[in-house]
């Protein structure tokens, strides 16, 4: 398929699978807190939000 969006979305899916999986997830599975919130929680929600932002960029790009 010639649609560049296809490749971009596949790349985002792979990126997401890497971000939310061993071993990257394990890097943040450590004690300690950022602004009082556990590192793991901050990481997951921040990465998730970033992924959604990228999906919005790709989806809305004309």
């Amino acid at each position, binding site marked *: 398929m010639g649609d560049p969006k296809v490749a971009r979305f*596949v790349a985002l899916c792979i990126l997401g699978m890497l971000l939310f999986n061993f071993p990257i997830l394990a890097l943040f599975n450590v004690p300690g807190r950022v602004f009082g919130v556990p590192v793991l929680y901050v990481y997951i929600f921040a990465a998730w*939000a970033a992924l959604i932002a990228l999906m919005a960029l790709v989806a809305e790009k004309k």
Partner: protein
Amino acid sequence: MLTGPVIVFTSFAYLGLLFAIAYYADKRADAGRSVIASPYVYSLSLAVYATAWTFYGSVGRAASDGVGFLPIYIGPTLMIALWWIVMRKVLRISKQNRITSLADFIASRYGKSAAIAGLVTVIAVIGILPYISLQLKAISSSFSILVQYPVIAMPEHMGAGSVFNDTAFWVALILAAFTIAFGTRHLDAAEHHQGMVAAIAFESLVKLLAFLAVGLFVTFGIFNGFGDIFERASDVPKLAAMMTPLESVAGGYASWVWLTVLSMLAIMFLPRQFQVTVIENLDEKHLSKAIWLFPLYMLAINVFVLPIAFGGLLRFPGGGVDADTFVLTLPMAEKQELLALLVFIGGLSAATGMVIVETIALSTMVCNDLVMPVLLRLRRLRLNVQPDLTRLLLGIRRGAIVAILLLGYLYFKLAGEAYALVSIGLVSFAAVAQFAPVVLGGIFWKGGTRNGALCGLIAGFAVWFYTLLLPAIARSGWLPIGLLEHGLFGIELLRPLALFGLAGLDQITHAMLWSMIANVGAYVGVSLLASPSADEHRQASLFVDVFRRGGETGGARFWRGTASVPELYNLLGRFLGAAAAEEAFREYAAARGLRWPLERADAELVDYVEVQLAGAIGAASARVMVASVVKEEALSLEEVRAILDEASQVVEYSHRLQQKSRELETATAELRAANQRLKELDRMKDDFVSTVTHELRTPLTSIRAFTQILLEHPDVEPAQRTRFLGIITKETERLTRLINQVLDLSKIESGRAEWHDTRLDLKEVVSDSLAGMGQVFEERNIRVQFSAPQSVPPVSGDVDRLIQVLLNLLSNAVKFCDARNGRIDVALYEENGGLRVDVRDNGAGVDEADREVIFDKFRQAGDTLTGKPQGTGLGLPISRHIVEHHGGRLWVETRAEGGACFSFTLPFRRRRVAVAA
């Protein structure tokens, strides 16, 4: 204030509001001004994914696992990233084939198989029952808790007591009535429920706002922000451990990954998600917004889950309060009555939204794909001659809705109470994940067959039933618990929770692993065993190549048979009602510019009717019904495959054919030219022979005539005799010259001529030739002028032959120059690496048309028949051959001031030139 009547009244008021919204949206849709034709409404309707599980259960899960609840929402986010590829294709296929449900989709893909449609329906209904029971449990227990306000007490387990005292039972019945009112008021051929979608979108807003409200209240009302909650929680060792929970959770990373995969599949294959995402989709373009808005919704509704969970654990340290109820009990404990009521309504939204869409989707499947195909086959009912079946269809759907909700209640009573909300829901996720191989395989792989799909579904479902549903029922005491501990028939290898000895995984991971191996293995394995049938091949092609086929369904071209218009019309009328049928036929006629009523039922019309019918009763049933009125000649597998496969090959063939035909044309043109040339040569040879004979006969005739005179009249005057002998001599000389020239030409042409090349001075050769002709010039009183540079470089050549050329050109000039005032100019000069000689006369010149002809043998300018021949007609051809042998060129031009100019060139350096044949 929070008394039973108030809560019940508020709940009904809320349901009434939903109904009003749905009613309004339906009215607007009928008026053609849809309120749901917006990507934002579409995205919100997708959020029906967030059910009571999300609303109450996530906190419960977070209170024991920390982030363990998140894969259920991260998985869908990852899957949605692939929606551009997968869901767009599913949407396009569904629109083109008028798919009405997930079962319809799968059955259509595998040759419109009624068996698959039925099997998928059964799996979906049984698989979803736990999920529905989860909603019933959530509503009834949240009601039970709220109604005891201000006391916070967990509801008693309801083993005892009559069914009619059970809140959950009444909840089930009320929801059934409500769903019937929502989804089965009338029959839509496209299975669109715009009112329902509008209500669901509204519910998604309500549950999000309710959850955010309680989240803000807990985080900033009870505690002092996120940091405060986690700060205090980290002082409790048990809670601190939950902040790095991935090792401590059962199954660790494996469990995390499997939950992610499971929810990736669930977002596609839960019947209600398929309903809102695919069936209710109004515009493919809405997908672009939904791709990021829906994940954003999931992110938003999950932000406060962890704070509420930790807040609850800190607020109720004793463990006497079920973590699944924290969302409700925290505001209650803080005496926030209104917030508690809002939370209850939010939970009600989450649960009712799921139940309404799920049961509508399931009832459509039960009706179209399970009950109708069976009823239609029962000839005793004579359904195929009933005038109006719309009431029957609606009746079946209403019955199915009641039955599904009551079955959900039954599961709740049987097994539901022993489990937490999330665990119940995951059992359903694992069930619908069994559809993944046949759907994903079906839209990307043409090789999947009906039997493969049947075997895959059966195998996957069987393993799911054995490893997930059976243990749930057994644990609740309805089956001997020994089944779990010692396996079926006491065989240890068959223990449902450690099948074939695979222990150490959590239950969901274990079940997913085995069921997917069985499912994919059977699907692929059986598919590979046999080739697909004609119908399967056709449907596979329609699905897999949906983007390649352009806008049309492409079904008609594979069909041949006969049908009558009235029969088709009546058939459609029985299922859609007469008015809808007439409208459908009118639309058909109008779209194709045909006159109404139609005269002829062609393949396209039959296809159209089948598609319309499929919208109402599903593809499998529609196929049966249409077949009953159409005398269809089945296409053989070979024919269909030939049509499909060759369609692509034909393009290439025709391409190659074009190329071949172009080559052929070129070859033909060459051949024609060669043939022309051959004919020309043949004609020229004939001409040559006849001309030579003619040329020879002329002098011979005159010689013979004069010798005969001399022989018969010995007494001829001496003067006369001398004249006759002179003529004879002259004619003999002419004869000799002619024969010599013919011989000469044939020698040169065949390459047998001898050449004596020397270095020669061309100026000298020209002077010698002019000198040789001096007598002739004088006789004819012709002025000759020769111009040449002082000296010219030598060229190599045969002197005698070149003199022959010059003499020929000069005698031609003599013959054709002005009779009284003759003048010949000869010029020699250097040009382009060689020497050039011009011989000009002041005669009539050579016609444009004759300029090449005169170089042909025996061809002379002018009419040879009437005019007296002034030469043998061989001089110029011979001269041209000689010049060309020397690597030069001989040609003629007509001068502007009259007269012909014959020119030839001789190069200093001779290229090898093949002697012309």
